[in-house]
């Protein structure tokens, strides 16, 4: 008789404001609605479907690679996208694409997660490794250059590795798990750095249409809180250890600031994205003309692409080449500036995918 049911008791007060039947389990940051688990699944998936349809992200018959790191965002993306593909008959061939940077105790563990996802979701997986592509693992690079600039390598190499993996899979597009919080953070960083050209571009849902492989972000308007709640309720299997080489303190502060704002006013995240979108620069900031790298054939506005400049430094034992203020191999100061910019726009620390 003393056996009370605390769970029921506490829950009885709050009902889902969508179905008015079940108990609410979540307060949506976007709308402040209180909703139940079933309605949450429905609105979460429908909103992503709407974003895909409204922005015409895919065409029937396309082959799509999902950049998969084993982390929460890409795991939920793989799950939801294969679900929507079935439900709404997008007619897509989906693949998982992972980059193995060669980080012991981090990437090898997260790759195990991706391999489980391959089986759980029935999506073929392709792994491309730094070792195979560049002859160096991240561990070896860090041993050589120390912890200071390793994110430059990570960012430049990963971007190219994903493009090369996508080419091997012969896919039409690459989708990444960047969420609304990530994009708000990048908008803020671009403002803090005075990088107006990147400011409006970083909010585009599809980028790189002129490059080898367009990239798009179906989670552009999806809150991180909801992604994590979705993964939790669905018991999705993801990997959540911070990369051991992620010293990007500046970005860390921006992240913290966004999270503080979100607590006070959750809509702040969508508003920051909106601000970024509305920053259309009237001056025609000229983007560098695209050619190809003389050495590896990757797109590059310079003689050599960034990865090749960095690699040359590593291979010649001059790892500072292409980083910071040191002189570039091509002797072009522009090169260096570009690499610095590359470093600047690098999104989340190692282990997650960047723009």
């Amino acid at each position, binding site marked *: 008789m003393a056996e009370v049911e605390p769970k029921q008791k506490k829950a009885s007060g709050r009902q889902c404001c969508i179905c008015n039947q079940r108990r609410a389990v979540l307060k949506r940051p976007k709308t402040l609605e209180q909703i139940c688990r079933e309605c949450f699944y429905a609105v979460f998936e429908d909103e992503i479907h709407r974003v895909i349809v409204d922005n015409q992200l895919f065409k029937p018959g396309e082959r799509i690679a999902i950049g998969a790191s084993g982390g929460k965002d890409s795991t939920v993306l793989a799950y939801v996208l294969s679900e929507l593909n079935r439900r709404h008959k997008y007619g897509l061939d989906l693949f998982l694409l992972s980059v193995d940077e060669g980080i012991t105790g981090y990437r090898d563990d997260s790759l195990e997660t991706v391999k489980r996802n391959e089986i759980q979701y029935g999506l073929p997986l392709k792994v491309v490794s730094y070792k195979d592509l560049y002859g160096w693992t991240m561990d070896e690079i860090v041993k050589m250059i120390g912890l200071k600039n390793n994110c430059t390598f990570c960012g430049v190499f990963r971007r190219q590795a994903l493009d090369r993996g996508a080419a091997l899979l012969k896919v039409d597009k690459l989708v990444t798990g960047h969420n609304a919080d990530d994009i708000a953070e990048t908008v803020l960083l671009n403002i803090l750095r005075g990088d107006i050209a990147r400011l409006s571009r970083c909010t585009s849902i599809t980028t790189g249409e002129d490059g080898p492989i367009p990239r798009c972000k179906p989670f552009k308007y999806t809150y991180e809180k909801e992604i994590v709640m979705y993964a939790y309720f669905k018991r999705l299997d993801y990997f959540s250890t911070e990369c051991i080489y992620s010293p990007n303190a500046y970005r860390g502060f921006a*992240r913290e600031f966004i999270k503080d704002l979100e607590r006070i006013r959750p809509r702040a995240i969508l508003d920051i994205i909106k601000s970024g979108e509305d920053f259309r620069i009237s001056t025609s900031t000229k983007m560098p003309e695209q050619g190809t790298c003389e050495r590896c054939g990757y797109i590059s506005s310079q003689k050599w692409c960034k990865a090749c400049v960095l690699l040359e430094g590593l291979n010649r034992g001059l790892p500072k080449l292409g980083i910071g203020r040191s002189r570039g191999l091509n002797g072009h100061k522009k090169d260096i500036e570009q690499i610095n910019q590359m470093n600047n726009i690098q999104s989340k620390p190692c282990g997650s995918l960047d723009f």
Partner: protein
Amino acid sequence: MQLTLEFGGGLELLCQSVKIHKVNVDLQAGKEKLTMRDLLSWVRTNLIKERPEMFMKGESVRPGVLVLINDCDWELSGQLDTTLVEKDVIVFISTLHGG
């Protein structure tokens, strides 16, 4: 009071990589109920072994840490003022790791 605490999304690393903790938390002297505010300060003292700033900010969890009480978002039950009862299950998940 017997409670089950679960740490995820990387927070388990702050408590010796143990995800699930069955704990017994006593009411503070002179109080007749246990709130989330009390529990957080108890967790900080008794479970968090390193980098407490990854878990807490001020008297609450750090923004970006989600809290569920019996699988229900604590934003629906009054956050710090939520009163806990015997056998409640409290889950803490960091959203701040990886992507």
